[in-house]
């Protein structure tokens, strides 16, 4: 809300009733946001001292605070804010250039304002305090005495400082945003949930009635309900930048205390995550950043000696991969001292010497998350006391996430935080086991294999079950065995990826895929650990979401076991990729399909194709397999379409429980696409490439 609006409302309030507490509340929230913006602006200004946008934004933020607090009668706050604003006005006018000293002074203003606001928040009164030294510091750059200047310049400056902002841009932006109590959103969510159920029942009731007016209305209601559900869900999402807003300032402060030069890089600002996660991550992230600067990054001298640039880099990256949000915090420092971790762990009896021989580097590193574990050679007031990483891990696991660390000596350390999208909508696969439906986040699914007649077979090696997948042995877990309700009727094997390794999960059958709303499981049922949450299915019933990581541990893919390496598509935890099959169309254009969606590629001779009407087909495994052209290609309506003494590659895939073949001119290569599977038209190897959607899965059956 603009300062102007406060004033109007405030006058009423002062004459008619005691000050409205909600106005003060709003002022505090607004001001805190303004201060966060100031922090960011000043850090930008340190890089680019003349940035007009940053100067204007900082000026506006301080000006708004000043304007509003004069209305509330917070004199001390007003004086401090005014002095800061006056200094900014000079910087903005170009009569003064930003120096490190000035930045320090301005940051001191921000801190003082924050302290005063904190006092107001506690007591509803402006706290007592002496700001003379700060004001004196600021006045060094401000004109010593007003009379020394001519009246015109004073007037101009005042106009500049007071007349113009709050500018139209701020108010316009603010009008598009509304602050809403999260509890109210939760309530709306519940109502929408109830609406969804009523919708489902109504749909069931009218389906029998056919295309009646009621049936059409029900269908419209169906659509709108789905959209409403989606929209409400999205209101709870916040960009990760809300979490990162304070980091530039934090990095700056910690770096200057440690006397290190650090550059913070942030990537993936727009990645959205649920509000509750943003809150839960604030402290752990702060801790990790402090740690990285204090212990991870070396000082300039050591870096130069190691042949690295004097300035350390802290890289923060966020991205969404299927059902998870990933946060990677990487420093290019010295890496974690594995030797010291070993020594400490052995000295503290955390691991027996026998066992220690079996531990991988990855296993050793996980010790740093234990309470009281520290390899820091010195304890600073920033970090090194051995408290913190364990708290960070607790906080992250508390919201259902995981944190892992990996390090390369001399090159740096990466913390990988992986979070579930609680309350988010994720694509998921529904499987059936002993009559119960369970849900698996599609993010973990690599491919589907059919078992039994006409499909693959699970083999046994001593006490373990394995499946041969394209020459690789995959450990297999039967869901029925885990749950104690085995049917010995498994018809599908899901190839799942967990932390860069893959394993097979045998289930009775695969039902369908749908977008699900992830809901937290009641706390008392979370302890078992095999379920990541629950969801409400279309028919209103609850289905459990399987925790693929926990299942992987059951499959003997626990951290201490080397296990089977995953296919290239998932081996890099940090950078998920999708294997695309690059094909050449008959007209020479390039197209691509998701490799996992293709059951197999077969070569078919021209003569083997048969035609009926506009369609082509060939006999395959005792059945007729219809063949389709790529969208870019001409139809297969005549014998000339697929002619010549040659063979044609056909990509066999499943759709609606039936096999189809996609005929192409040539299969050219496999391309690892970084990120989630693309759609539409993309550029691969400098060629425009159509992504052909093969409707989900390599193997699929009608439910």
């Amino acid at each position, binding site marked *: 809300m603009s300062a102007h609006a406060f004033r109007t409302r405030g006058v009423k309030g002062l004459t008619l009733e005691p000050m409205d507490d909600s106005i003060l509340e709003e002022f505090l929230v607004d001001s805190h946001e303004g201060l966060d913006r100031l922090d960011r602006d000043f850090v930008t200004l340190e890089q680019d001292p003349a940035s007009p946008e940053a100067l204007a934004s900082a000026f506006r933020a301080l000006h708004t605070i000043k304007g509003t607090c004069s209305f509330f009668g917070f004199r001390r706050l007003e004086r401090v804010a005014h002095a800061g604003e006056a200094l900014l006005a000079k910087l903005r006018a170009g009569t003064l250039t930003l120096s490190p000293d000035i930045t320090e002074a301005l940051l001191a203003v921000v801190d003082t304002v924050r302290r005063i606001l904190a006092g107001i928040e506690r007591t509803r009164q402006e706290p007592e305090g002496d700001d003379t030294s700060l004001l004196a510091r600021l006045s060094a750059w401000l004109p010593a005495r007003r009379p020394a200047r001519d009246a015109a310049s004073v007037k101009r400056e005042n106009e500049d400082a007071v007349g113009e902002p709050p500018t139209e841009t701020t108010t316009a932006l603010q009008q598009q945003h509304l602050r809403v109590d999260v509890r109210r959103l939760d309530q709306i*969510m*519940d*109502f*929408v*949930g*109830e609406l*969804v*159920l009523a919708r489902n029942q109504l749909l069931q009731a009218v389906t029998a009635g056919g295309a009646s007016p009621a049936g059409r209305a029900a269908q419209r209601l169906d659509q709108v309900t789905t959209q409403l559900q989606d929209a409400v869900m999205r209101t709870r999402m916040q960009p990760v930048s809300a979490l990162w807003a304070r980091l530039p300032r934090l990095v700056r402060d910690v770096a200057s205390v440690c006397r290190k030069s650090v550059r913070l890089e942030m990537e993936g600002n727009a990645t959205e995550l649920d509000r509750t996660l943003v809150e839960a991550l604030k402290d752990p992230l702060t801790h990790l950043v402090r740690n990285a600067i204090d212990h991870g990054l070396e000082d300039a001298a050591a870096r130069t000696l190691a042949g690295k640039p004097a300035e350390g880099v802290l890289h923060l990256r966020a991205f969404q991969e299927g059902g998870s949000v990933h946060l990677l915090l990487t420093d290019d420092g010295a890496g974690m001292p594995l030797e010291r971790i070993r020594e400490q762990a052995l000295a503290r009896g955390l691991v027996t010497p026998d066992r220690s021989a079996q531990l991988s580097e990855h296993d050793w590193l996980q010790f740093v998350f234990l309470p009281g574990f520290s390899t820091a050679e010195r304890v600073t007031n920033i970090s090194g006391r051995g408290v913190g990483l364990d708290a960070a891990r607790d906080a992250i696991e508390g919201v259902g996430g995981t944190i892992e660390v990996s390090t390369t000596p001399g090159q740096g350390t990466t913390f990988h935080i992986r979070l579930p999208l609680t309350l988010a909508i994720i694509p998921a696969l529904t499987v059936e086991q002993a009559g*119960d*439906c369970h849900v698996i986040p599609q993010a973990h699914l690599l491919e589907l294999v059919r078992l039994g007649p006409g499909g693959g077979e699970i083999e046994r090696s001593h006490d373990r079950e394995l499946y041969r997948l394209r020459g690789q042995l995959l450990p297999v877990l039967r869901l029925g065995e*885990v*749950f*104690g*309700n085995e049917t010995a009727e498994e018809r599908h094997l899901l190839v799942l990826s967990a932390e860069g390794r893959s394993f097979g999960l045998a289930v009775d059958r695969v039902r369908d895929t749908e977008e699900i709303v992830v*809901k*937290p*499981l*009641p*706390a*008392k*049922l979370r*302890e*078992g650990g*095999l*379920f990541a949450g*629950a969801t*409400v299915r279309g028919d*209103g*019933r*609850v*289905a*459990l979401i399987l925790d693929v990581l926990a299942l992987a541990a059951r499959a003997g893919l626990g951290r201490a076991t080397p296990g089977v390496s995953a296919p290239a598509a998932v081996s890099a935890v940090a950078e998920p990729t999708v294997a695309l099959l690059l094909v050449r169309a008959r007209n020479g254009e390039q197209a691509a399909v998701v490799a996992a969606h293709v059951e197999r590629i077969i070569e078919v001779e021209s003569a083997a194709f048969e035609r009926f009407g506009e369609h082509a087909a060939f006999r395959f495994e005792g059945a007729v397999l219809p063949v389709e052209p790529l969208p870019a290609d001409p139809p297969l309506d005549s014998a000339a379409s697929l002619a010549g003494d040659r063979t044609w590659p056909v990509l066999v895939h499943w759709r609606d429980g039936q096999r189809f073949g996609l005929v192409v001119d040539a299969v050219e290569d496999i391309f690892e696409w970084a990120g989630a599977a693309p759609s539409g038209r993309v550029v691969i190897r400098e060629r425009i490439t159509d992504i052909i959607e093969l409707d989900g899965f390599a193997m699929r059956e009608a439910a």
Partner: protein
Amino acid sequence: MIPAIAVLETGWCTFLVADGLYGVEVARVHEVLRPQPLTRVPLAAPAVAGLLNLRGQIVPAVDLRTLFGLAVLPSAGGLVVVRGGEGLTALVVDAIGDVRRPEGALAPLDHGDGDPFRALTVPLPDRLLTVLDVDRLLEQAFDRADREPLARPRPAARRLPGE
């Protein structure tokens, strides 16, 4: 759906489990439901009958028959949704009864903290009402240790009219 009972009422929301008349404080009852489809939770404590969807909220259901060490009926008679320590929990019961209020001259017997489930036994004019201690009950229900059921009720000496 039976509407939720007003919170400020005093009394006990009663229900039947096998031969016994049980009750929980009305203030703890969120609502009473007809039987709902439940989703089984593999590997959960035996008394966890499953999960139900209460207007979008996932609520665990506890089967009182299992908890009391009795044979489970093929279909439940109703659900009593109570407010527990961490959100709502539904109790699966044989049949829903009336709301009964303290009455008569006889004082209830307070079982103290030693009893696994019972808080009070209230002598109603027609029969005894066992008031359950919801907190202790839920603590037992979610305990995953496969221990012997703690409170096997004795079969009623005589059948009551109407049962």
